[in-house]
């Protein structure tokens, strides 16, 4: 083993690899800086939520979650997500089918329009509905005459949520279905399947993990949306307060334990979302590959 040839090769090898990576001290420094940055900016906020929620003990935590207004906020958030996520799911599938399976004029423009809500401030997403349905709004007088309440009620909250979560499912499915092409569906059709069967038995199984991925992100945003919902909700306790809005109210009332207890539920939702998302990427990475990165 004391071969001089090997010994002289080692330093040479070292210097060669040093040219395509950084020296060890630099690597260690950069890793530490990165972990410190992620720790301070991402981990600490997460830890403080749970620390503050349990600041006065487990009893106080569960007591504040048992509050009637808190429970009605949880129910409303679940209701809003249960309506808006399926709506955007159906839209996502439909838009992805039209855009990925066909070539038509204006396709790129349509895809841009679908992404539009991402570049609009959540507050503006709420504002547009106030301008439409509010007392001074375009349809305000007509709605009032017919006794229909949209603003400061559940329909308005659902609409604002649908607006901000609009692109999630579609933008996961479009690249995925484009990558998969039309071959499988054409085969199914040539074997005698009708369009519906081709969709149900061929397309849907092909995209199911990508679809789940999109629904996961859509749901996280639907349950956590604050700005848009805040503008249209009217903040009526026990009636039009979603969980994020309830967090704000409790926090502004200096009820830290209450605010962070509700926040801890939302943080738990975020953690579950992240774990499921990571698992999906690990297990079905290839099947949602087109969507990696969002």
């Amino acid at each position, binding site marked *: 083993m004391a071969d001089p040839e090997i010994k002289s090769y080692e330093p040479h090898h070292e210097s060669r690899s040093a*040219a395509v990576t950084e020296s060890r001290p630099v690597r260690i420094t950069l890793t530490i800086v990165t972990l410190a940055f992620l720790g301070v900016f991402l981990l*600490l*906020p997460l830890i403080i939520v749970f620390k503050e929620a349990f600041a006065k003990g487990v009893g106080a935590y569960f007591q504040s979650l048992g509050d009637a207004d808190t429970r009605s906020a949880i129910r409303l958030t679940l209701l809003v997500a249960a309506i808006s996520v399926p709506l955007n799911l159906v*839209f996502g599938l439909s*838009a992805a089918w039209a855009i990925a399976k*066909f070539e038509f004029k204006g396709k790129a423009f349509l895809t841009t*329009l679908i992404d539009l809500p991402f570049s609009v401030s959540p507050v503006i997403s709420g504002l547009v509905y106030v301008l439409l349905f509010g007392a001074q709004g375009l349809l305000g007088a007509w709605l009032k005459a017919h006794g229909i309440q949209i603003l400061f009620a559940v329909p308005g909250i659902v609409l604002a949520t649908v607006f901000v979560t609009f692109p999630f499912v579609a933008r996961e499915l479009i690249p995925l279905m484009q990558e998969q092409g039309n071959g499988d569906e054409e085969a199914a059709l040539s074997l005698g399947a009708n369009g519906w069967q081709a969709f149900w038995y061929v397309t849907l199984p092909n995209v199911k993990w990508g679809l789940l991925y999109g629904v996961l992100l859509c749901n996280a945003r639907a349950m956590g949306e604050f700005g848009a919902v805040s503008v249209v909700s009217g903040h009526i306790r026990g009636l039009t307060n979603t969980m*994020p809005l309830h967090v704000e109210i409790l926090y502004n009332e200096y009820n830290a334990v209450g605010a962070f207890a509700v926040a801890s539920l939302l943080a738990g939702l975020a953690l579950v979302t*992240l774990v499921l998302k990571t698992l999906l990427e690990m297990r079905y990475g290839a099947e949602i590959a087109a969507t990696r990165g969002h």
Partner: protein
Amino acid sequence: MTTAPAQAGWRFRQPSVIPGFGLTLGFSLAYLTLIILIPLSGLVWRSASLGWTDFWALATDPRTIKALQISFGTAFIAAAVNVVFGTLVAWVLVRYRFPGRRVADAMVDLPFALPTAVAGIALTTLYAPKGWLGQLLMPLGIKVAYTPLGIVVALVFIGLPFVVRTVQPIMEEIDKEVEEAAATLGANRFQIITRVLLPGLAPAIVTGFSLAFARGVGEYGSVIFIAGNLPYKSEIAPLLIVIRLEEYNYPAATAIAAIMLALSFAMLLVINLVQTWSRKRYG
């Protein structure tokens, strides 16, 4: 090559054996129109019907201008910070192997998943004078909570995944042989990074910057808790829209929203042009 005679004319779509085009496109367009286009054009119509003089008076209101400056300024600084740290995070996650790398990678998406209000109260508690981080920064004379610096901190949190997730996939695709070739030709590590790697990453970094910036300009939930919301000091434009709405001052709210939208789109347009240019320049 035989060309079908029908292809000579203009056609809306290429023929296909796949059914359901009319149904899915029709439904998608109807839904898009109802949920997005009609409400948004309502905003445009409203601001147009204000008339130029009224609109100009509302747009040049000093409080509005200051709020817009604060929103765009802090979003710019935060996006710039994220370009540096986001690229670093992506680099370390792609190139280095260390225990906990997968967890760190998954954590990067936390700002996407954590509701903004939760992020807002958590950051405020951390950076408040008596908070874990506020306590440490106070003796150094750095005040974060209830100052514009607090807005930047919140926007760095919100924008980080946009930069990391845009740059990371491009970094993974870099061919190590390019670096080796540069090294054989006598380039040192610094030259390789600045002359070989960064130009290839530039379009992705610009995209990440623009996404983080656009998100930061419109951000509301995570900012309002930590900002302190003093008019002319730490009041962001989205908050001013909310304040005007609560005063039932619809014209003012509409004008601010229209300016924000126009500025954001102009900015995205410029960034798109820069990107096209950098793609051409660096291939």
